[in-house]
């Protein structure tokens, strides 16, 4: 065997060994990351009295679906199906509004030089820093005067007017797109609206998917909004219903964990459906060429 072949063999061996180590470490890390969630899943399948007895065991024994049946009944005769429907309606409207307004506003800020742009931009950044608590009472009074309390409107309409976080995120993406593309379009006689629609919009789709997914998840998990604005149980969201489930003294842990697991499913689906778009879309975007 020649020296060259020997070296090749040893390189291959090292590579293979490195790959094994890499996957071993990554898998261990994955398990650590997912342990809390697996624990929640396991607890949801254990009889209520067992959850805290066999605490670190991830294998429910005996295995039971009783928590899911109890939990799905919800409370006061309203099943969790109703809460899921409510959350879904709110989250869909909210994420649609966020995505639409963020793409429009971000384009204006990132590409067009108009008088007062910096003032508006700074005020946008400032809104991002406003502690939510400052706005709570005055906004409640405002929405009450508009007759919106008790409806989904306080949780969906503001999304159509651009959240600073989303605008900023999309802006950062637009700013990474070379300007010569829209300058060329300008020379060809394209208006700002045309540039937005035909040049920038297709390029920022990955960013918009990110915004959509993030705002959907944010809206899905938000319980403060339901706490303040929803009054009738028929309109409660999953997040708020879970909060009621985990009431201080009479918690049905098994049912709470079971419904927590179910509450994760829609966002998991969204994530698995869009994760290809999220990552590949970004690297395949027209920016590259």
């Amino acid at each position, binding site marked *: 065997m020649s020296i060259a072949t020997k070296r090749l063999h040893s390189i291959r061996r090292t590579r293979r060994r490195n790959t094994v180590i890499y996957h071993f470490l990554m898998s261990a890390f*994955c398990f650590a*990351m997912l342990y809390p969630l697996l624990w929640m899943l396991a607890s949801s399948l254990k009889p209520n009295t067992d959850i805290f007895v066999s605490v670190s065991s991830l294998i429910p024994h005996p295995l039971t679906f009783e928590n899911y049946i109890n939990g799905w009944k919800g409370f006061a005769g309203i099943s969790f199906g109703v809460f899921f429907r409510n959350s879904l309606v709110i989250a869909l409207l909210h994420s649609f509004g966020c995505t639409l307004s963020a793409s429009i506003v971000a384009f*204006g800020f990132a590409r067009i030089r108009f008088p007062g742009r910096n003032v508006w931009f700074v005020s946008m950044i400032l809104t991002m820093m406003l502690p939510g608590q400052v706005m709570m009472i005055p906004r409640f009074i405002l929405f009450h005067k508009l007759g919106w309390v008790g409806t989904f409107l306080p949780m969906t309409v503001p999304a159509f007017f651009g959240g600073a976080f989303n605008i900023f995120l999309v802006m950062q993406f637009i700013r990474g797109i*070379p300007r010569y593309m829209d300058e060329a379009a300008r020379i060809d006689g394209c208006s700002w609206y045309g540039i937005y629609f035909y040049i920038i919009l297709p390029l920022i789709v990955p960013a918009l998917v990110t915004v959509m997914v993030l705002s959907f*998840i944010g809206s899905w998990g938000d319980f403060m909004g339901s706490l303040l604005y929803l009054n009738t149980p028929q309109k409660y969201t999953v997040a708020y219903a*879970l909060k009621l489930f985990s009431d201080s003294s009479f918690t049905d842990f098994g049912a709470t*964990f079971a419904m927590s697991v179910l509450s994760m499913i829609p966002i998991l689906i969204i994530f698995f459906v869009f994760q290809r778009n999220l*990552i590949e879309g970004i690297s395949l975007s027209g920016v590259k060429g």
Partner: protein
Amino acid sequence: MRRLKHFLCREKVAGYVFIMPFIIGLFVFTVMPFFTSLYLAFTSYNILTPPKWVGLENFRTMFFKDKLFWQSFWVTFKFAFIQVPIKLLFSLAVAIVLSKKTKAISFYRAAFYIPSLMGASVAIALTWQQLFSYHGAINGILTALGIAPVKWLNNPSTALGVLIALGVWQFGSSMLIFLAAIKNVPSSYHEAAIVDGAGPVRRFFTIVLPMITPIIFFNLVNQTIGAFQAFNSSYLITQGKPLNTTLYYGVHLYNRAFVYSEMGYGSAMAWFMLLVIAIFTAFIFRSSSAWVYYESEGN
């Protein structure tokens, strides 16, 4: 119609057309409530009776009488300055590892991102509380390894650490943004550098890192602001205990305003928080010109 079209297509006008949704939202949902709360900061307002003007009284109480004000300020400060750098470094590191093309990458990526999907929800809070309780799973594992169990949530020196760990555990969304940014670096740059003989480490520091500075900047601003406003983990898991070592500023503010119905005092606290956040953000922005690189403006 033609003139309208011409008018709308002027640069000045077009800019305003695009940001109009934001401007309307700003005035209706932010500016109006904002000034209402500014007014309330100088009043004594228990929500049930009309506000009463008290001048600077709320601020005087805040700075000189309320022990918990400074305590919660310090806790929040610690929380932000420990959690944010760890979380950013962590998510950047994981993003770099994940940006390499290997099999099973999408599985790892999903596994790391899933925790942040849940947010600081009731379910996660409950799970976290149980994992770190005295008879909880973490201590179960420690005992199996021959290490003495720790009262994580009841020890003044570890409780905040547990909450920070929860924040870091949910590094997924900033990791995802980093990952997108790394993948966004044109492969032609890499190819050129490889031709020049640059190794992976040098390529990262000379190409990838400068290219993703806008995203690092974005994550830094965002995470810092978020950390200053943190509320859920303390409110749901520790309620500020033990000995107020996990009492976030946001929780103290909430308690004063909504538990004790001191809306005026709460508004004053919110305004002070706003000021502090503004100073820090201004500082980050100021420094950004030195280290943030925008491709389109760079040439």
